[in-house]
């Protein structure tokens, strides 16, 4: 892709105190209209990365690096400017819609509030716009639903309402943090279809955070794989599934249960994620890596390109071998 990226994250490092660093030197881009997935397990730093882009980290977090959105570094903006940008140009969806919606206001109140913050209009016009938005995200009988309180809606419908709020200002970028994790699989499938449809209809770029490789396979164009605070691989979705270069990516793909082929014994990754307070020396994945060699303990391999569309942080990845040996 040659166009300028919509979002460009460089060397993002987030630490919460001197001992605990949640994200280390993360760099990735999201282009207009693109769906980039960030995949990783608990503690990989994927959600903290997303929160950093949203500017929603607590004040105690120490953030370095840069996060450019349409050329402006979000880390240098004032809270006021950031607030304006968020909601207008960047929409956000969280995992648990019940905690994001205010229980004492109706759905209609909350959507019209979002609509009018960014686009002053009469209550009546905002109400019409809200109906339109709910219709767009596939909520049946939208006009009646606007009168409902969040607790009267199912999890799937609540998440659709959240998406409607996020879309109220026609954002250029939608950040979705595990948006389908709390939902039943038939509802998850409906929401993934909805995300795809929104991209087609509005050209919204989406940054999707998930732990589920299957969700990636369904919707992502490009995927960033995180492990224990670092990006270990970045690739197009096809390269990632066909030619994973980092052993962690292969391990993750191997341990994902599938519906196709023989129901073989699952491949596993030995051991567990390292304790963030006592990280191993060298490559963070080395203690669990089936291919680890002594050199892996010497240094943390940087994320280096293998091809124009794929990078990996492994000294054994083809094309990096020479460099690692030097």
């Amino acid at each position, binding site marked *: 892709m040659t166009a300028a990226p919509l979002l460009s994250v460089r060397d993002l490092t987030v630490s919460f105190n001197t001992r605990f660093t949640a994200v280390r030197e993360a760099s990735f881009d999201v282009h207009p209209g693109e769906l980039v997935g960030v995949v990783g397990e608990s503690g990989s730093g994927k959600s903290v990365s997303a929160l950093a882009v949203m500017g929603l980290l607590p004040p105690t977090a120490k953030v370095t690096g840069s996060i450019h959105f349409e050329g402006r570094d979000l880390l240098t903006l004032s809270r006021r400017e950031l607030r304006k940008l968020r909601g207008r140009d960047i929409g956000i969806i969280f995992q648990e819609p019940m905690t994001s919606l205010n229980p004492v206001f109706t759905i209609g109140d909350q959507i019209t509030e979002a609509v009018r913050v960014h686009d002053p209009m009469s209550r009546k016009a905002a109400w019409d716009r809200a109906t339109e938005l709910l219709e767009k995200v596939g909520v049946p009988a939208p006009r009646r639903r606007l009168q409902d309180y969040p607790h009267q809606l199912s999890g799937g419908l609540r998440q659709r309402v959240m998406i409607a709020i996020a879309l109220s200002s026609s954002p250029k970028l939608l950040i979705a943090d595990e948006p389908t994790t709390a939902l039943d699989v038939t509802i998850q499938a409906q929401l993934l279809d909805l995300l795809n449809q929104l991209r087609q209809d509005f050209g919204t770029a989406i940054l999707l955070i998930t732990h589920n490789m299957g969700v990636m*396979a*369904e919707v992502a164009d490009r995927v960033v794989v995180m492990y224990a605070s670092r990006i270990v691989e970045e690739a197009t979705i096809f390269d990632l599934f066909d030619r994973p270069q980092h052993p962690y990516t292969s391990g993750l793909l191997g*341990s994902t249960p599938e*519906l196709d082929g023989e129901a073989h*014994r*699952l491949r596993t990754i030995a051991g*567990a994620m390292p304790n963030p307070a006592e990280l191993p020396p060298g490559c963070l994945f080395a203690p669990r890596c089936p291919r680890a060699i002594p050199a892996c303990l010497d240094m943390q391999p940087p994320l280096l390109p293998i091809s124009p569309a794929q990078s990996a942080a492994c000294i054994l990845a083809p094309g990096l071998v020479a460099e690692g040996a030097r």
Partner: protein
Amino acid sequence: MTTPLLSVDGLSKEFPVAGDNWLAPRQTLRAVQSVSFELGSRQTLGLVGESGCGKSTTGRLILQLIEPTAGTVRFNGRDLATMPREELRQLRSSMQIIFQDPQASLNPRHRVEELILEPLYAQGEKPSAKLTNYAGELLDKVGLSRRHLTRFPHEFSGGQRQRIGIARAIASKPQLIVCDEAVSALDVSVQAQVINLLQDLQDELGLSYLFIGHDLAVVRHIADTMAIMYLGRIVEMAPKREFYALPMHPYSQALLGSVPVSHPSKRHARKRLEGEIPSPLNPPTGCHFHPRCRFARDICKVQVPQLRSVTPTRQAACHFAEEIAAGEGLTTGAS
């Protein structure tokens, strides 16, 4: 014919629920309706469905943790409901459960040794060096080590805690373990480890599992037989291989179609299931699934389809199972 290890017949559970306001009459939530199945020794039955379908209630009914409204549960041919209390208490060591959330099911103030041996203490055993040694063996078996015996639950990761839960479940040498969403809360790489562990233990100890889950891809790796539940009823039951090759009930088809693909090349515009799961308090008439079913006809609105044999090996609760399976329903019903 030999007696199956577990035989469930017409199991039902109704919960009284308060009305919408204090004037409204009490309502009845029919969580489980006439569920019947058998589970043989060393077998795994995968019980799959979405939130509120009654799968967890079924598991608890079988273990007599809650009392059924109707129906019987036979364990080795003996009816648990009519069994004297004391005998049932002893029999409990043969039936164990692993919960979804190991954090919530392990007492944070107890050390691992106590936690694991709890089922034995409940049977009247007293702490001893021999039991401590046994607890150590159990930890080895589940991939932990005996040096963990003196630790507390908070010192472990989610995957390790689930291993402790498994060690506790196998401590009393059970024949049946109900795994209630036992791997659902775990990270993918840890989930795979625990699934493999459960399979190894099954082979080694001759266990039977009732594996309750919502993820068809996960259950496929461990079950021998599949049972699909929707709003309190089993809608389909079949040997695993046949089920995944061709689910017969329209709901099973939709459920399978909703599982994320395993490779981006398999993305396709699928027939998604529309609408949401209706409230179990007020389920649709006739076939519970008919409002969302693309094959539904008039009869589905009025007549409850019984779970019946469609082929010698499989059962489905659908008036048109044969047609749908034959592919005919695909054209007539969709139009």
